[in-house]
């Protein structure tokens, strides 16, 4: 890795201030790793090698201490996602109620493979494990929002919603 990545890595003042607020709350600095990674990922969209180095230096750790987290936790991303991150719950209660079809429909609509950004950059579609809302199965999480009872009609609505929102550039 680059030796001076920490000098060149850019992060907004707001993000740095948020990190400075969060870190001292923990009795041991290493505990702040996940919250700091979330702040960086929130700004950058994913965690590059430079980001990993910067975070490790900020927390007085070795890069491996952060790298091993980024390669373990599914919600820490090594690559950018599409503009919308679609996560279809694949575990039993959702599967019993049609989740596989829902996921296939999203992939078909955006012409993409699972876990890969669609050619138009609109979405990344992936499966997520049980998301704790089995009574409203099947459920789909789009970015931070959870959508319930996603039947065929609702799936089409969500696809339309993503299409119209991502066209306008956001």
């Amino acid at each position: 890795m680059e030796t001076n990545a920490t000098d060149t890595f850019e992060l907004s003042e707001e993000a740095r201030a948020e990190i400075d607020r969060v870190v001292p709350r923990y009795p041991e600095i290493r505990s702040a790793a996940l919250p700091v990674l979330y702040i960086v990922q929130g700004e950058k969209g994913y965690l590059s090698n430079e980001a990993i180095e910067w975070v490790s230096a900020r927390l007085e750790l070795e890069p491996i201490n952060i790298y091993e987290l980024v390669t373990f936790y599914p919600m820490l991303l090594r690559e950018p996602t599409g503009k919308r991150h679609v996560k279809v719950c694949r575990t039993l209660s959702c599967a019993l109620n049609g989740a596989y079809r829902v996921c296939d429909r999203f992939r078909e609509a955006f012409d993409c493979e699972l876990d890969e950004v669609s050619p138009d950059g609109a979405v990344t579609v992936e499966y997520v494990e049980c998301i704790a809302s089995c009574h409203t199965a099947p459920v789909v999480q789009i970015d931070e929002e959870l959508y319930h009872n996603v039947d065929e009609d609702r799936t089409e609505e969500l696809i339309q919603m993503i299409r119209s929102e991502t066209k306008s550039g956001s």
Partner: protein
Amino acid sequence: MPHPKERRLLLSHADEPGYTGSYEDYTARGGYKTLEAAIRREPAEIKKEVLDANIRGRGGALFPAGRKWGFLDPNSDKPVYLICNADESEPGTFKDRQLIHKDPHQLIEGMMISAYATGTKLAFIYIRGEMFGGARILEEAIEKARANNLVGENILGSGYSCDLIVHRGAGSYICGEETGLIESLEGKRPYPRLKPPFFPAAKGLYMCPTIVNNVETLCQVKHAVELGGKEYAKIGVPNCTGTRIWSLSGHVNNPGYFEVEGGAYTFGDLIYDMGGGLREGRSLLGFIPGGSSTKVIKYDQRYRGKLQDGTEVDWGVEDIPLDCDGCNYFGSSSGSAAVMVMDDTTDVVMALANLNAFYAHESCGQCTPCREGSLWLKKITHRMIAGEAREEDADLLKSIADQVEGRTICAHGEAVAWPVQGFILRFRDEFIDYARRQARERAAREQETTAAVA
């Protein structure tokens, strides 16, 4: 609206029209009065109430919270930490989500009472990373509680101080295992620790005494202290005091959460009455009673014999009480009280393949039997649903599962093994028929191809 068979204690206001779960709504209904009273009493008295209440851990292990607290060494000079396990991710379970979203101050009050009783100066809520909304709700509620001197320095002028931090996980199921959670909170991979010596009450977070309790358990603490432990224990039955929130999902007409007095009703009541029964023309194949790691119970199972207390019973699956131990007589466990119902249209091989994929994905990889075994199990069931099932697969699956169980640091090994053992024990014939049917189909296809070539 709550079902007439429910007895709502924790969810008493959750679905009340107009109730938002805000600080104002909560305090208007007597919220934080229990903390106010508790903080004027000796911590030992509060501990005694919780011990008397016999609140069994609602995360699924069912270990009494009061006894867990009793493992704290009163002579230790290290700081004590309290952690709320809000990493709700055992498939089928969605009760904690309701408690967090609909009445966050109840959880905060339960936590501050528990923190005071255990001598905690810093407490954490470890919440699932995917629960963005829940984390925001808790953050805001804590700020509101802090502004009202219910969290933070010198709480209600008592001289007792305790801070509360919401810490978000990052999508890993194993963080629900308490020692994995602690490792994760320390900023590491969530590799569970060996017990002994790393019982959290002795060597937990930062090697300090630590109590980890589930969301529902901590909410129950608030009610146990409010009513008094002995009064609380009169609700329900001895093996399951208080209420339990059952998460019902799968093939029922009215899936949802139902808070029921311990032992007051049965699985039949839950599935056919509260849950609205099965869909038109379908019949019950079985259900997973306590989260997906517990063993499946098949519709035609019976238990004839004595209960622990000596009572003679003759139970069908509909007669199993909604308590803590009833499922044990059917070779399973009530775990996290998450009931997943499967009707007669269910492809059992597909269902097990789904669960095997889950447990393989979520194995942390630390112990070889779990890491390798869960993958083998997943590969076998995946091959089966891909059309290459073999008659011997049923016994092969069971043999692998048997070699994972009991050979790992944490209970994920059991969580890998139990679904397989349960499905093969109850549906072995269906697994073999499945393979035979595929063999016939393959033979027919081959014959067609040969005929076409000829």
